[in-house]
């Protein structure tokens, strides 16, 4: 069985600090949600994950973006890169980088849910026959040829993100619930990607798999589980 082999010391340097684990829940309405997945090189498989997580084969990088007209922190957009993995036997997406458009959103996402959010330019634009995501100079992605799917056909993997918590350096499990009203599958094309800007120079999105663009409400609930990033989830999981 494979396990992550990234340096925890290096990952910890980029991890945000959560002053409290008492996050409460928030619902974000009328969000546009883009998710695109790319197979990575096998050489990226273990070195993009901490030792407490297990890679998939082939390794998969997922770009997830939200855009919403309103929220408790005002209008904002967010994009993150994730590596598909397993915590114990459960599917998870390990967040390597996160950019959001406002200081208020960045503070909320990092302090309440442990996402390594920094402020930057994020643009998610829906056109008639395409969707375009751009994040500063570090990422540009186009989704082409929308094809309708059922709301139940797409799934969003639960998030695992590394943060300094009151209990120490932990993988924080964030479990957004998506209530979708419209889903379309699109063909992804990655036009620009700077791995170094997304938390790991070892991210190697090579082979596009698929993407979806959806509209719906997102509820981010209170945190329930943490796990130690240095050991398997079976021995390192704690209840919040």
């Amino acid at each position, binding site marked *: *069985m494979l396990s992550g082999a990234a340096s925890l010391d290096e990952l910890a340097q980029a991890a945000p600090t959560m002053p409290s684990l008492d996050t409460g829940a928030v619902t974000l309405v009328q969000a546009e949600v883009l998710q695109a997945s790319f197979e990575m090189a096998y050489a990226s498989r273990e070195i993009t994950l901490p030792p407490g997580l297990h890679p998939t084969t082939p390794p*998969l990088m997922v770009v997830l973006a939200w855009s919403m007209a309103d929220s408790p922190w005002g209008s904002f957009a967010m994009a993150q890169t994730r590596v*598909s993995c397993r915590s114990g036997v459960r*599917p998870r997406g390990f967040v390597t980088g996160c950019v959001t458009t406002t200081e208020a959103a960045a503070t909320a996402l990092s302090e309440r849910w442990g996402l390594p959010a920094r402020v930057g330019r994020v643009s998610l634009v829906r056109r008639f026959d395409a969707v375009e995501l751009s994040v500063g100079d570090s990422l540009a992605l186009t989704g082409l040829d929308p094809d309708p799917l059922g709301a139940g056909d797409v799934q969003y993997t639960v998030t695992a993100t590394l943060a300094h918590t009151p209990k120490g350096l932990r993988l924080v499990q964030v479990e957004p619930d998506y209530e979708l009203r419209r889903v379309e*599958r699109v063909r992804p094309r990655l036009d620009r990607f700077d791995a170094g800007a997304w938390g790991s120079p070892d991210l190697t999105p090579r082979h596009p798999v*698929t993407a979806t663009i959806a509209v719906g409400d997102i509820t981010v609930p209170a945190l329930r589980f943490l796990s130690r990033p240095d050991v398997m989830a079976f021995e390192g999981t704690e209840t919040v």
Partner: protein
Amino acid sequence: MRFGIFFEMSTPRPFSSETDHLVYHNSLEQARLADELGFDWVWCVEHHFLEEYSHSSAPEVTLAAVAAQTERIRVGHGAVVCVPEMNHPIRVAERAAVLDIISNGRLEFGTARSSTWTELGGFNVDPDDTKKTWDEFVRVLPRMWADGPVAHDGRCFSMPERNVLPKPIQKPHPPMWVTVTSPGTELDAADRGLGCLGVASTTYQEQERRTQEYHRRIRNCDPVSSVVNDQVTTLNFLYCHEDADVAAAGGMRMVGLFGLNNAHLLWTREAYPTRAYQSLGNLAPGGGADRSSPGDPRGIPEGIGVGDPDRLIRVIQRWEDIGVTGINFLLNASETIPQADVLASMRLFASEVMPKFMDKGAASTAAGAPC
């Protein structure tokens, strides 16, 4: 009740030629012993690229060796992935017919469509299409085996009139099965008159529901050929030992390791949203939205064939009461149980457990019941 053994060719890291050699030759030894002990089937899966979980990418070759080294046991091609990017249907028909000839008419023919992105993506298969191609395969293969020259104008492949040769020994063709992981596939099997080859562990309750629905539906089936294979098998683990504690320790280590390897596969639905893969097998991870505690090892399914002979008799009796007509056993995972212990487990099972069920319909189905 009939009993089979089921090969995934699960292989531990670090990978090497020696490790693969060990796994394959241990499996062949198990097949020879199963033949001697009176097991009914030896099944061999088809998987590609699935590190640790299954290195069984050429089952037709493995089964040719099994056929040559055994006398009586039926050889289960379980199952051929019915998508043309992996297996052209003409080649499937030809290989299966040769296996039936080599084995002197002992072939059981399983069909499947693959469920991991690792495999489908590796062959550049569109997951939206696999159910359609599987359906086309199972309808055309019996014609290739039973008829003379065959022409086909289909959605996934077409061919001008040709005589696909050789023809299998069993007439009109070997019994046909469908692997069932997702709920609902048993209905696809029943509607086409195909056997239900369970390849994911299920609970008693879920299997009972599936079995009842299968038997109800198959009575009114529109079969893909002139024979109906009305059988329901389920997949299980086997580790039988006189000492229940020893059995539990070794057997649960195998079950846990198999579950971990299985959970670490990249399932199609996780990577590629599609209507064609609505749900996952029972041993598969609970989907990307599985919010349960990562520290909770997935529960061990009930009805597992791990224990002393008395426990196994009770477990199998329960499966039989549900209406299951056969159980196929995984014997090892990543070689976690030493080969000598696997063979001892098989011998104990055959001497203490199998006789309790031998007098209840042990006759071979051969080519199935007339429609």
